[in-house]
């Protein structure tokens, strides 16, 4: 069981860093994997800055072919239909801003609800004393084992019968109130908070609500932020559930909108530049979050995996 504290007891400090053949080989392998990880992102950018029609004339050029911001303009709806067609776009209008808005609503609402309500439950599991606490917690955790496809069929029917198909509540509700992982994650942190602080608060006459809002939540901003980021990224990237219940224009999220690309591509050459520009813009919010909170995200992965 690794936790945050353990990551500081780091790798064995190697006193003599001689460049043996083994180390050089290891670095070579590492660099190869780095290139494998990063190069596709460069290629995405290079393609997005090219003119679609010209891509086939120089398909292996490392620089954008016939440099233009046209693809981004098409995606963001800034180009006229004539401009779009001239550069190899379809000319059909893409409601990119609408899908972006939908993604923000979906991922934002799920994150806020899930983190808040899971924090409340985690507090009850970590700090309050009540009969059956561990049993109920065990049952909640059991839900981790159930594959999502198994519950999504009945959940789809439920949302359909409630008349919530193609509405945001229908998309958001199933993960709005809890996920087993979120409760588990926060409970671990609440368990580690010093009891004395809470107890002195309760001596001062603070009830559990005030203790929760004034002491526990402010003391846990770090794990709560981490969980919020992870939840946001996961929900932002979600495809299966929004595809099932949010496939109308008004609720379609970016992943679902991008996913139809292949079926809509006519026999001719697809608008690769436009597609790469769209995927790049769709990934930007998550990439920004990552660059802001890289260390938090990286540390939390080790934590969540070794539960």
């Amino acid at each position: 069981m690794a936790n945050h504290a353990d990551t500081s007891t780091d790798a064995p400090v190697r006193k003599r860093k001689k460049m043996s053949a083994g180390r050089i080989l290891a670095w070579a392998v590492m660099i190869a994997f780095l290139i494998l990880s990063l190069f596709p992102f460069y290629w995405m950018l290079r393609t997005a800055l090219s003119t679609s029609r010209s891509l086939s004339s120089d398909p292996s050029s490392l620089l954008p072919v016939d440099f233009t911001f046209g693809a981004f303009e098409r995606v963001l709806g800034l180009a006229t239909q004539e401009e779009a067609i001239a550069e190899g776009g379809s000319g059909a209008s893409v409601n990119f801003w609408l899908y972006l808005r939908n993604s923000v609503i979906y991922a934002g609402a799920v994150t806020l609800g899930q983190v808040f309500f899971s924090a409340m439950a985690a507090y009850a599991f970590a700090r309050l004393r009540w009969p059956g606490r561990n049993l109920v917690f065990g049952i909640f955790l059991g839900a981790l084992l159930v594959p999502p496809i198994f519950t999504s069929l009945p959940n789809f029917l439920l949302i359909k019968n409630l008349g919530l198909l193609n509405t945001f509540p229908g998309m958001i509700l199933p993960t709005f109130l809890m996920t087993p992982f979120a409760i588990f994650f926060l409970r671990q942190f609440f368990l580690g908070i010093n009891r004395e602080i809470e107890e002195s608060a309760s001596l001062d006459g603070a009830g559990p609500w005030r203790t929760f809002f004034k002491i526990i939540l402010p003391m846990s901003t770090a794990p709560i932020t981490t969980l919020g980021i992870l939840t946001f990224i996961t929900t932002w990237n979600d495809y299966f559930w929004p595809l099932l219940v949010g496939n109308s224009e008004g609720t379609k999220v970016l992943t679902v909108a991008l996913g139809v690309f292949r079926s809509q591509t006519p026999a001719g050459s697809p608008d690769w530049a436009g597609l790469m520009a769209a995927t790049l813009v769709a990934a930007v919010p998550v990439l920004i979050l990552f660059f802001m909170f890289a260390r938090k995200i990286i540390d939390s992965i080790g934590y969540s995996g070794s539960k």
Partner: protein
Amino acid sequence: MVSTRTLEHSLDTNRKRTSDLRTALLFIAPAAIGFVVFYLVPAVRGVYFSFTRYNILGTPTWIGTENFEKIAVDPLFWNAMWVTVGYVLLNIGFQTVIAIVLAVMMQRLTKSIALRGALLLPWLISNVIAAMLWFWLLDYQIGLFNQVIEWMGASKIAFFADETWAIPTIAFVNVWRHMGYTALLVFAGLQTIPKYIYEAASIDGASEWTSFWKMTLPLLRPVLAMILVITVTGSFQVFDTVAVTTRGGPVNVTRVMQYYIYQKAFGEGQFGYGSALAVILFIILAVLAAIQLRMLRAGESDLA
């Protein structure tokens, strides 16, 4: 550190023990509603549906084990099963080996957070975007990889459209997206191995290579077991990549289990049959998890 003050306080909280129940119920109420409505009841209903004939527009009729009997002789089910197993073996095999190699190198070579971040980058974008990106990189006409293949004098490969290549290609895309993530899980496991073990090994004159095989790997076993359970369970449910690239084709070679369930339930509206397929997938995953944990003795550590 037990002072009289803390003792007094804990006595105080003990006295209030009974009064916590009402508060606790209020605190877990939202989560409990979410759990019952969207996890527990659906799981029970899912099992019930699997014993019914249920067209999406009609009502469920109890038919006993008929769905399961049909599944047993459904060639598309068996096809989906073998396709999925093949995919999982390829995906998990490569992913696990690569992750261990990367994790050990992360530990031995550098502590750079930038490097770990760079390897994690593919995991941050969605399956859909990763699939689109590789769909382009591996495009038959003007994709970069086929340009390189041609330049090396070999003949082009229709990665997503060729019956032999389609599943390995989808496995590759998912290994690409998950290798950094899995490496970080393994890396976290490496941190739990105490320093003195390596020091002792190095004093005894063990090479890096020997200490990896004789020390690191055996001590990593419980962590690897957990990671395997997580990654195997995840990769059995592959859907997104298939749905946006091959849609089960060419012919049926990429019609993985979850895609088949999706087609049956939502494409053909056969909810009963789809639920029965989902029950079977659930049972397979549960059995596999139990076997893996047992075989890898996840609960025990060699670090006694």
